[in-house]
């Protein structure tokens, strides 16, 4: 446990030193405040509209950003140590591969979690202070759910980054693979699902399609944040399938946690198998 903490401590202080944490927090904060006040500008409306609309917009944004930031933060976690010449030295210490990976996950996770809390949390505080008559209870529960699920989504993609980093032989390959994973889950998957819907013209069992959303952690994440705001789910492409999904919020959380557990286990396996 002590070794895990030692590695986590190094990763976390690296995140502070290279200003990753500051950059992510600021980015989230500026975007969140901007979306809260100007999210509806396209429809000619300026100013805070509603909590569900804000969360829906923020969740759409975070669906793109969280995976990208997590992948960028950790794609070189293993292969970068090897290219930098420190991996072999680390592995000669009384430190198992599993401890090294867990420590990195903990350190990167803390950076991501704290930056998400500070960035999006500041927007929640701004709304609470500046918007009159806002329901603080609803605001708090919506933002807590949003921040926790965003962090969890980020952790899933951190785990993906470790898988890629453990399997790649060069840092540039890991970066390319990371972009590929991002494209697959954030852009391609939903488009593919929509294409299937259109092409099959309902020939696929309608009960099956909503379950396919669970094959993408970013879709589960959006479902978690749209749950409770029934109106928000309308008109959001594949999200409209979710109304046929016989699953509660707890089950969706469990699915996202299961994604994390499986990908993290895969990362441990990939690192254990890595020659070096």
């Amino acid at each position: 446990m002590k070794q895990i903490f030692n590695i986590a401590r190094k990763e976390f202080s690296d995140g502070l030193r290279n200003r990753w944490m500051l950059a992510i927090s600021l980015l989230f904060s500026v975007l969140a405040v901007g979306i809260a006040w100007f999210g509806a500008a396209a429809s000619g409306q300026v100013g805070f509209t509603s909590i569900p609309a804000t969360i829906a917009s923020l969740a759409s944004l975070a669906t793109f950003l969280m995976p990208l930031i997590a992948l960028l933060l950790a794609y070189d976690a293993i292969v970068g140590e090897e290219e930098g010449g420190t991996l072999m030295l680390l592995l000669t210490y009384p430190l198992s591969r599993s401890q090294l990976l867990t420590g990195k996950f903990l350190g990167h996770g803390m950076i991501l979690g704290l930056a998400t809390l500070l960035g999006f949390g500041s927007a929640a505080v701004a709304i609470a202070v500046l918007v009159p008559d806002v329901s603080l209870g609803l605001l708090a529960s919506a933002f807590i759910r949003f921040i926790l699920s965003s962090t969890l989504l980020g952790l899933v993609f951190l785990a993906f980054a470790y898988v890629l980093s453990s399997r790649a032989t060069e840092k540039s390959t890991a970066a390319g693979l990371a972009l590929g994973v991002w494209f697959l889950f954030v852009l391609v998957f939903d488009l593919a699902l929509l294409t299937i819907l259109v092409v099959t013209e309902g020939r696929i069992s309608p009960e099956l399609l909503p379950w396919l959303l669970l094959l993408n952690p970013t879709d589960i994440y959006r479902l978690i944040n749209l749950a409770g705001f029934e109106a928000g789910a309308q008109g959001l492409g594949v999200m409209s399938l979710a109304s046929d999904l016989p699953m509660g919020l707890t089950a969706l959380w469990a699915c996202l946690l299961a994604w994390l557990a499986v990908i993290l286990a895969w990362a441990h396996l990939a690192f254990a198998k890595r020659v070096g």
Partner: protein
Amino acid sequence: MTAVVELNKVNQHYGKLQVLHEISWSLQPGEIMGLFGHNGAGKTTSIRLILGLIRPSGGELNVLGGQAHDARVRQQIGFLPENIMFYPQLTGLETLQHFARLKGAPMSQVADLLEQVGLTAAGSQRVKAYSKGMRQRLGLAQALLGDPRLLIMDEPTVGLDPIATQSLYRLMEQLRSQGTSIIICSHVLPGVESYIDKAVVMARGRLEVVGDLYQLREHAGLPVRIRVRGLEGRELALPGIDSRNTLHDGWEELAVRPQSRLEVVSRLLQEQPQDLEVRPPSLEDLYCYYTEKAGAVGVAGVQQ
């Protein structure tokens, strides 16, 4: 006495490729052992086995009375890799502190080690500003964290100036006197020759020879070179002479079979030369002999 490292018929395969063949040797407490061989001879694989980075495909390997990959064993091993690299963003001090925490070494040792390797002043500089020699010295300090019982150094003198090299060798002797066992891999054979207690020569994944320099010389039977001055043109009836060559300034060099060297020296002294030097085969001569021999002959053994 229990061996610090003991290899007994160790084999190593990478897929279908066998890179180590039945390697057996041992290292005792307080011994300095040179591990020599051409590139690809199996030195690095041997080191990786001892460090627990890989496990042997066959045979027995015992390190500090346990398994090489055991955390308690690793805690007692210091390792200085060839061309050591550190995190460029950390200072020298932060680097040592990080590795001290991982080793479970006392933090108080960090400042002492920085001083020992002459990096106290540079301790607050980031490692990316370090020269190769400074990085190497920081690497040495890192390897000494936690007072290891076994120190493994791969090409430790690369990047070090002659003074730093000499202090490294003196440090090795000091550590030996404290009971630390040392394995040193180096291609700078003349440098390490006077400091090692034992040499292991490997070629093509096989152990060619293991023993102290005296044993290696006895076994190889290479000629001893005796240089004399002031006897030029004189008829010398000496036993076991392979060749006699004239050098410069009145010096001549005789290549003498090892078993005849004492008698030859004794007879030469009777001729009252102006000067005389005896040059036994150097570590480099022995290394070349065993490595070249490996191409034609299999394992030679002066096993200890």
